[in-house]
């Protein structure tokens, strides 16, 4: 009997997936986990190193207090208990990109334990909340980077030689490990994605990491196992690494569900192993087998003392936990009466904070959103910088106020923004220097209108005859004549009245 290939739908009708997620976050501390070296991304190889992070004989680690603070903030935001006593351990294994041949990492005594994160997923029966239990949040140091040169695979085997860059060695990492997430059924991929998204947003709101999946400052490993529905069993799990975007998280989980289901269907067993996600195909390929579990010979790091955060300090930190991003988004969307699509754009462009600030400074919500998402983002794109680095929220609010007051047209306002961005001063100074005043002086406008009418007598006649849309050509001529500085609405009003069509 040949077995039919199970597609995703068939797979999830037969098997119940169990999910588990491990997320590694690079903290954005100025210095490394155990030394004072800089953590700048993309520096020349081996320029951000010292005896400590190079593991030179005799060098000793000192824990970065900021990293502890960030870890506690993460734990608190994820509803964890903060351990009154936690320790680092040494994870021993040999690899050239690890200077000491052990990684200093928390092991059985992590800094935060027992939390949860609720995530919302769209199901056939509408939005549903899934609770993801957090087992632990722990600190560790990153390894260096190897570049394997020669050979076809870019892997160490078959390479001609390898280059080592220790700039990343010792960068603080926080690992957030969930418990297994049961009961997701066919929504496992969406739950995984929603979890990583929510987590990313929380980390961003805490300001503890750049959370750039493409740069590796947020990395996700997805553990997955299948068991026949209703069996109550827990299958053998695989661990998929190298999942570097939110979309990939979803694809990796669904792909793995399909792969495992078809193996089980064919009577084969699932091998406990590490698999690598392939971005192009959405498939995973086998990596290291975990059947022969590596023995890391963990033991408490004798060069460091236990971490015993003061209870009052933890309470101080708790006060700093911002509103949960998903809740805040919903609140702002309602307050601003903002369409879904625009809200998504604002979130993706990381403009929520500045738009909120601009509005708090008195700007009208729609205009605040439009200016930040439109003209300012466009200029930022051109200059390849962040919109928020171009102009302050105060100036944006000021410009919007001038538009509302009729002192600037949108076109003039764009020039004001350009002037501010180019460093010509405050909006007022730019208006002054560039002479960007709205022409609202009726006499001046009337002169322009009359000359437009005499240039296009036929058009004027049509308007007099009741053909209002024909007025557009005359308005355009007036705008052109005034260099765009006239208020178009005002021109229209004066023109129509002059041609006997005013109310």
């Amino acid at each position: 009997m040949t077995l039919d290939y199970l597609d995703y739908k068939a797979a999830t009708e037969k098997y119940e997936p169990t999910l588990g997620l491990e997320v590694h976050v690079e903290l954005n501390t100025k210095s490394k986990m155990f030394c004072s070296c800089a953590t700048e991304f993309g520096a020349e190889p081996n320029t951000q190193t010292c005896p400590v992070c190079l593991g030179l004989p005799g060098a000793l680690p000192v824990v970065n207090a900021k990293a502890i603070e960030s870890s506690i903030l993460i734990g608190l935001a994820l509803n964890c208990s903060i351990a009154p006593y936690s320790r680092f351990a040494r994870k021993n294994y040999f690899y050239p990109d690890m200077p000491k041949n052990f990684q200093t990492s928390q092991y059985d005594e992590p800094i935060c334990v027992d939390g949860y994160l609720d995530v919302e997923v769209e199901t056939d029966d509408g939005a549903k909340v899934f609770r993801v239990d957090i087992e632990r949040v722990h600190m560790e140091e990153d390894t260096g980077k190897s570049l394997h040169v020669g050979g076809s695979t870019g892997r160490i085997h078959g390479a001609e030689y390898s280059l080592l860059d220790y700039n990343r060695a010792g960068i603080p990492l926080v690992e957030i490990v969930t418990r297994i997430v049961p009961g997701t059924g066919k929504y496992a991929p969406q739950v995984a994605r929603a979890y990583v998204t929510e987590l990313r947003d929380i980390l961003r709101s805490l300001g503890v990491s750049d959370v750039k999946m493409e740069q590796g400052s947020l990395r996700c490993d997805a553990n997955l196992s299948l068991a026949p529905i209703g069996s109550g069993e827990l299958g053998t799990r695989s661990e998929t690494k190298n999942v570097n975007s939110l979309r990939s998280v979803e694809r990796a989980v669904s792909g793995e569900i399909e792969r495992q289901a078809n193996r089980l269907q064919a009577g084969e067993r699932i091998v406990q192993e590490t698999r690598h996600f392939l971005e192009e195909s959405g498939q995973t390929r086998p990596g290291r087998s975990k059947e022969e579990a590596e023995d890391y010979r963990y033991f408490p790091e004798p060069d460091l003392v236990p971490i015993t955060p003061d209870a009052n300090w933890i309470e101080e930190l708790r006060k700093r936990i911002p509103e949960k991003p998903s809740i805040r988004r919903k609140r702002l969307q309602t307050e601003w009466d903002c369409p879904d699509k625009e809200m998504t754009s604002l979130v993706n462009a990381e403009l929520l904070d500045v738009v909120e600030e601009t509005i708090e400074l008195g700007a009208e919500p729609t205009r605040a959103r439009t200016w930040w998402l439109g003209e300012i983002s466009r200029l930022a794109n051109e200059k390849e910088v962040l919109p928020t680095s171009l102009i302050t929220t105060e100036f944006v609010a000021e410009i919007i106020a001038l538009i509302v007051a009729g002192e600037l047209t949108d076109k003039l306002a764009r020039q004001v923004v350009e002037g501010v961005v180019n460093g010509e001063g405050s909006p007022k100074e730019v208006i002054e220097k560039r002479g960007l005043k709205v022409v609202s002086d009726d006499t001046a406008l009337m002169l322009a209108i009359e000359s437009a009418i005499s240039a296009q007598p036929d058009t004027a006649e049509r308007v007099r005859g009741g053909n209002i849309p024909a007025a557009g050509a005359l308005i355009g001529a007036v705008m052109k004549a005034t260099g765009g500085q006239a208020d178009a609405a005002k021109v229209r009003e004066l023109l129509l009245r002059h041609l006997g069509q005013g109310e």
Partner: protein
Amino acid sequence: MTNIYSSASEMADSLAKKEYSSVELTQQHLDRIADVDGKVSAFLHVDAEGALTQAAAVDAKRVRGEKLSPLAGVPLALKDILAQKGIPTTAGSKILEGWRPPYDSTVVTKLKEAGVVILGKTNMDEFAMGSSTENSAYGTTQNPWDLSRTPGGSSGGSAAAVAAFEAPLAIGTDTGGSIRQPAALTGIVGVKPTYGGVSRYGVVAYSSSLDQVGPFGRTVLDAALLHEVIAGHDERDSTSINAPIPQVVAAAKRLDVKGMKIGVIKELSGPGFQAGVSQRISESLELLVAAGAEIVEVSCPSFEFALAAYYLIAPSEASSNLARFDSMRYGLRVGDDGSKGAEEVMSITREAGFGKEVKRRIILGTYALSSGYYDAYYGSAQKVRTLVKQDFEKAFGQADVLVSPVTPTTAFKIGEKSEDPVAMYLSDIATIPVNMAGIGGMSLPVGLADEDGLPVGLQIMAPVMQDDRFYRVGGTLEAALLSKWGKPLLANIPELGGVA
């Protein structure tokens, strides 16, 4: 006339009075090294140029009338386990041959700041693993009392250099007795400070939770003067204690033990200790009683497990600490002929670069930390450590200081124990509990054993950060012994000079 036979404090006084210069004093020691080190083999590297430059700088400051620290201009020998910028630092191992650290250890920084002149680096058992310097990859150091015997170890080079008048002061490290045992075997003063009392930053790690840097001198006061230079909190060492340095110089000068209770540890006496050793120890106690101290007996029943626990904890930490010596970034690289992968080169280098005892301990430690064995070995050893601490706490409830012999025997013959690791390990039986508990201890020379005419050391121990107590007792006893003998113990050492 040479000044090398003076004590460091006498040298410091003479320098202060400008009776001679530091350059002269340093040159005299360099001459002495040239003269006798062919026999003693205390030094692995002599930095004559650097030492004379440092000495000249101190002299210049003195001429300018700048304020100098008490030991400014006095020479010192540095154990080759401390990183000194630009100076070869091997830790007695082939695997670090040719490595010149790009940075100074905190102790070296402090020595330089104090104007102490660093003559060079001294021999040691490889990575401080050993009790005789026979495990050095660069040959054995000889005991100046009898060149056929070891000076002890692992800081044997430093101890021998001080006993042979090649340096008035030296720095050692003590993980299980590596300062106190060689001090005892060469008839000088050696101190293992409280764990965390002196920074370990820049000290090539053997066993991080046990290693401690300490001073050697020919007198208690000399050791105290050096102790105060090197001690103190260091932000770079997380295990360093943030508290004021014990006033050890004042304690060394106090010469009074009236009313002090001295606890004799029952488990560290009697059979198992050489008769001549026990005899000298008893006489010392009598002198202390005569000086007004009271002797009490204390019991530390857990000490019998301390040695076994030590040989699980220290190798476990060592197996991890020594993992970094993999030929990738510094030191020896063997077998990199272009045909082999990184892991293979690591493996060949480690095979070629580590000595027998180091390999033995790496294997032992790797095994003890392995999953399935961890609880039985490393875990149990940590429990013993707690028990040892509790024994000390209890004993210090009954006495101000505790005493015992430093070693079961006087200096043994080179080769005598090198094929029997357990016999070698036993030479540290009395010193190891101190490291396990993180307290401090001193080895004080208290005479020569009748049967062999070799030095005997008394160990004096005090609670955490109460190091001043053993300086007080040591100083008092030293003075009593001096008045009894009429001359220092080292006056009896055979003259080595003349024939290089």
